[in-house]
């Protein structure tokens, strides 16, 4: 029920290619992270839709492998 910061970064990068991703390890237990994701894919989407793209990138991992992920989405400017 945990994943490393690198595994998380790789999963998000694969799911949201071309985005800028920053991950902060909140508790050092491999289970609580905060991710800030800047992507062009978020243009024209509301927050719910933006976060859904992030959850899609995580697939089954969210809620199972990973318990707590705080997500912040921003639009990536040119």
């Amino acid at each position, binding site marked *: 029920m945990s994943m490393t910061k690198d595994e998380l970064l790789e999963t998000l990068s694969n799911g949201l290619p071309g985005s800028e991703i920053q991950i902060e390890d909140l508790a050092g237990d491999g289970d609580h992270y905060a991710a800030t994701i800047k992507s062009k894919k978020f243009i024209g989407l509301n*927050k719910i839709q933006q976060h859904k793209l992030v959850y899609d990138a995580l697939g089954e991992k969210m809620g199972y492998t990973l318990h707590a992920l705080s997500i912040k989405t921003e639009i990536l400017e040119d």
Partner: protein
Amino acid sequence: MQKNTKEMITKEISSNDVHLFMKGTPLFPQCGFSSTVVQILTYLEAPFTSTNVLEDENVREGIKEFSNWPTIPQLYVKGELMGGCDIIKEMFESGELQKILKEKSIISK
């Protein structure tokens, strides 16, 4: 998802203006994320109802499928999913949440 679970969720979000699916209760939240949303709603003096998903495994899993949203808490306003903890917190900090709740006549100030 069981039919009665879906019916229960539909009933809760359609008959309550602001409804929170959370872990624990507003008085005794059992998760930091749920607690944050309760604190924001309480601070804004927005009346809300809630469902403790820890009391029923069918609801705990059912709400994720219903909303197509993998985490709890989930805040519904006028039958629409507004967000989980991160979104609600961000909307509160930007003032957007207050604006929406005012527009929908849920809070007055």
